[in-house]
């Protein structure tokens, strides 16, 4: 039938690009997302640079270490925190359920989300580096720029996947931000993001190394050290990052839901609400 032929679904890549654009528009209109991803790290860069005594880190000027560290912080905000807050909000407001009723394939939606996280991250990292270069005399280490880009991409992918995985455990929009920051900030503190832990206790180093933030942050920071001549992430740390990403993918595949009230903590409540409704008899 002619009508059937005319209903050939759109190419997934086109749909995904549309979703990237949609998510970017939403981000621009939501001051929180914009603030978290770009303004917050930029403020921290400026404040930490201004208030911290000009003490070299690992033989390098402080700003030379702080700038890539703040880039790592950008990734955490633009990918992990934003994924959690925006996806939980979209799910609880019924936006995901509505999209689920359209021909948009599930993975295209998440691809669109990751695309917008990527674009936001690249812009934020660009702003941070430009600020460092222009105001704080930071030098880009051109021979390591490829490694820096690779570490950045790895961080975007890993943090985004972890954020999406965490949404399956967050029942309400109001708890999304506390959960996101409550998990991210402690890790960032022990993972060389806010200050360089030059000689940490062994247990703290081991603890940080068991999570993906420290490997990404240390690799990005190393790429601003002129002495770096090769891929700065040890294989063991790369495996940690890939392992966490794989776990996140499994969690997403098994538990990602589209309906409001579908996260585990809310599911029991939803069921009892249903019972209440059933209990009301016809007049």
């Amino acid at each position, binding site marked *: 039938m002619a009508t059937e032929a*005319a*209903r*050939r*679904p*759109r190419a997934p890549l086109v*749909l995904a690009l*549309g979703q990237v654009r*949609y998510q970017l*528009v*939403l981000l621009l*209109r*939501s001051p929180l997302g914009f603030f978290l991803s770009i303004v917050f790290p930029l403020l921290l860069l400026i404040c930490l640079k201004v208030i911290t005594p000009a003490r070299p880190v690992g033989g390098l000027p402080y700003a030379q270490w702080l700038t890539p560290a703040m880039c790592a912080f950008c990734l955490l905000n633009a990918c992990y925190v934003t994924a959690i807050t925006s996806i939980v909000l979209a799910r609880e*407001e*019924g*936006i995901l*359920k*509505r*999209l*689920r*009723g*359209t*021909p*948009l*394939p599930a993975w295209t939606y998440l691809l669109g989300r990751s695309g917008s996280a990527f674009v936001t991250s690249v812009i934020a990292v660009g702003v941070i580096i430009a600020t460092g270069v222009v105001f704080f005399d930071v030098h880009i280490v051109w021979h390591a720029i490829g490694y820096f880009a690779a570490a950045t991409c790895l961080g975007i992918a890993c943090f985004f996947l972890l954020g999406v995985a965490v949404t399956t455990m967050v029942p309400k929009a109001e708890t999304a931000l506390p959960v996101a920051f409550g998990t991210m900030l402690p890790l960032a503190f022990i993972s060389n993001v806010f200050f360089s832990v030059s000689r940490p206790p062994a247990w703290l180093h081991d603890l940080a190394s068991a999570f993906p933030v420290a490997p990404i942050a240390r690799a990005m920071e190393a790429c601003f050290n002129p002495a770096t001549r090769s891929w700065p992430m040890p294989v063991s740390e790369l495996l940690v990052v890939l392992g966490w990403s794989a776990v996140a993918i499994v969690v997403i595949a098994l538990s990602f839901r589209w*309906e*409001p009230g579908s996260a585990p903590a809310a599911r029991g409540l939803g*069921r009892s609400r*249903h*019972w209440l*409704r*059933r*209990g*009301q*008899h*016809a*007049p």
Partner: protein
Amino acid sequence: MGGSPVGEPPPAIVVERLRKDYGNVRAVDGVSFQVQRGEVYALLGPNGAGKTSTVEILEGHRRRSGGSVRVLGFDPDAGGRHFRERVGIVLQSGGIDAELTVREMVSLYAGLYARPRDVAETIAQVGLTDKRRARARTLSGGQLRRLDLALALIGDPEVLFLDEPTTGFDPNARRDAWEMIAALRRSGTTVLLTSHYLDEVQQLADRVGVMSHGHLIEESTPDALGGRDVSGTVISFRLPGQLKASELPAGPWDQREDRPGEFTMHTDEPTRVLLALTQWAADRGVELPGLTVVRPSLEDVYLRITGQAAMGADDGH
């Protein structure tokens, strides 16, 4: 079963012995019905009757626990993108990005379908042209539901699901929504709607299925619901002084005590009784003052049907 005439399209929706359990609560229990193409079919029932569960299974939002379901020949559970290209869904609430404008929202959804309708035309059809540049968060409740309808229509669906489309509307907004749905029917769209408003069902639906406690307890046209088109009709009149009550045809007539001379009858055969009565009066050359014929209201019938079902269900336990 092979009995349909050649060339008649298959039904748009076929539901057979549908069952849905939540834990050990059976929300939908053995529901069967069919919706023909171009038909407006209403599922009517009180809250908790199983209407929304049924519709969400047909939409592909929920998995059924048993029975079979076909929408445009697809199993909604497995139909995937090709199925969702051809249906439109109006949710009970929500699902709209507060920071997008009406036109952005409708354009965004148009971009998801293979053969969308025209964006401006669809916005005009739901009466939001003046609001097309307004962000969703500034819209009133009624305007949001119209946007909701625009989003369901933008993919040019063959089947439209409307779950309680006017709940929470003021009377004007309800009228507007009814007009839009009537226009959809004229354009040949198949519509499955749920409602607990009787007047809405009477206005919109070609056929109605009454649900109570997970069962489909009656199916008919709105006018004939519960035998309403014939049963329990009340005929009343006053008898002029010169005529005697004992001569009245087709009794027994009840004389109302509060109004002397006024007679009423409850009958399931209003045509026969009226003919006999008016013939009798005409033969005697008199008018019957205050002659009225009143059908039971849809509400009376509905309460009777669902009340019986509730009692039956209670007896069963």
